[in-house]
């Protein structure tokens, strides 16, 4: 899979040769319009390519007479770029982190320990937590996102004509312009809103949202404002509870690559930090597992967390291959 910079390099050498067919030119235009990073990477690559001309001076006269004349390449005027960008072409090329499926859903995934920001063509952003997977489809009528696995924070660009709907299992969340996180864990869906309003629909009791604006809350639809959280667990109706801003920030500490605990049981904290790591921590002792943990840790620093927990809880951390065991007893050494 080529990165944006690599794709940009390909377009840059092609365009510089000055023989893009009309179809290729259209493909390039759509690729550039699909994402501002594409445009940035492309002009950067063209600049680098042009910069290399300085080396020519060191190599004496050129022998060719048919050298490509870059001035004849189709102009990349800003006005035209703007026009294509405004046309909102939903065509997408390749990218560093996603592939196109045949059903025109884009699929994005993040690896273990990775937090990944994805800019969508509609101006929305999604920030993916560790080991997560999301598919996206943007049409004229709606912006359709599925959380397949893990957790993501959505910053939705306002667009009243196209509701932004995130589905996770049997739960659908509809937003117009807002910031919220959805987490999928063991068939439980957890929605936290930090800005604006969303609606949460339980699709087990309802087929989905009406066509109206996000106000027609009926059975099975809960309205969620900023600093509220909904939990949809199997065999239970959606449960809405308030979250204070500090708590929401703490829950979303992964945005900065951190995990934050405020009195959770060690067992819960270990589950959370394990999500971010290939190596895992195992707590062998039930009474140790229920001890409270407080602190902010780098999500991928498994050893640091184990050492801190061991020190705070008067426990011992032992390495066992890819496992770190936490046990009662004073630390060795």
């Amino acid at each position, binding site marked *: 899979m080529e990165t944006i*910079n*690599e794709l940009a390099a390909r377009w840059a050498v092609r365009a510089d040769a000055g023989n893009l067919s009309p179809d290729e030119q259209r493909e390039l235009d759509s690729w550039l319009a699909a994402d501002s990073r594409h445009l940035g990477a492309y002009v950067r690559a063209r*600049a680098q390519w042009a910069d290399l001309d300085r*080396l020519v001076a060191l190599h004496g006269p*050129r022998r060719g007479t048919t050298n490509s004349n870059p001035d004849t390449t189709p102009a990349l005027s800003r006005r035209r770029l703007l026009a294509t960008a405004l046309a909102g072409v939903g065509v997408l090329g390749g990218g560093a982190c996603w592939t196109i499926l045949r059903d025109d859903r884009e699929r994005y995934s993040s690896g273990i320990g990775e937090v990944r920001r994805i800019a969508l063509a509609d101006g929305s952003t999604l*920030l993916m937590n560790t080991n997560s997977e999301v598919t996206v489809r943007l049409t004229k009528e709606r912006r359709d996102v599925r959380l397949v696995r893990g957790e993501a924070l959505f910053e939705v660009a306002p667009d009243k004509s196209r509701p932004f709907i995130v589905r996770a299992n049997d739960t659908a969340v509809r937003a117009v312009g807002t910031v919220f996180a959805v987490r999928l864990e063991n068939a439980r869906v957890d929605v936290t809103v930090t800005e604006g309003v969303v609606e949460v629909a339980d699709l087990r009791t309802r087929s989905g949202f009406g066509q109206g604006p996000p106000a027609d809350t009926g059975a099975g639809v809960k309205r969620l404002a900023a600093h509220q959280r909904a939990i949809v667990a199997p065999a239970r109706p959606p449960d809405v509870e308030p979250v204070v801003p500090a708590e929401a920030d703490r829950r979303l500490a992964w945005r900065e690559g951190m995990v934050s605990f405020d009195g959770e049981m060690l067992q819960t904290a270990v589950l959370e930090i394990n999500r971010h790591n290939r190596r895992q921590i195992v707590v062998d002792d039930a009474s140790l597992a229920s001890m409270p943990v407080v602190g902010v840790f780098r999500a991928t620093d498994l050893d640091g967390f184990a050492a801190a927990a061991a020190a705070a809880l008067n426990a011992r951390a032992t390495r066992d291959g890819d496992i770190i065991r936490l046990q009662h007893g004073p630390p060795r050494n």
Partner: protein
Amino acid sequence: MGDLARYRWLAANILPHEPELRGWLRRRLCAFNENDVDDLVQEAFSRIWAAEFGPIRNGRAYLFATVRHLLAEYARRSRIVPIELLGEIDSLNLISDEPGPERRVGARQELDTLQAIVALLPRQCRRVFELLKFEGLSYREVAQEMGLSEKTVENHLTRALARIGAALATRTSAGELTQLQSSAKRADATDRGND
């Protein structure tokens, strides 16, 4: 200014400051991985491209100001960027009103760097690159001379540019910031003499 002239302007005024920018981002924003740095650099180039270049007197200041705006937007929207870092860009005295590129190493030295990067390309990739760029051959001529398909020529050139671009983007040394501040006063008016 035509597009080619604009690319040259970017090459002369913005590209030289990319390694410094990346170094700073990597050092200061621990939560940023290499992808995030790439994203930010790409966004910055996109913004700069949309600007009118004429009034920009200091490419480095402009690049850093652009990134500062981007970081502020990130920070506003998701608070992923500690706000105090935004102030740090200013306090590093990176933004000055001095005209012209104040931080170019000598032109000759820079060309040596470029040459060294080209020399590190895989053999065939380098040959294709040299034939096209230095000898001025067309794709077809390079393909004929080397017995390759034009598609393969394109692949080699793509790889060459991607590698050279990545190498240019990261050539930075630890001492560069201090070196830069001491040399900030010296405007090097002759550094583009090879153009």
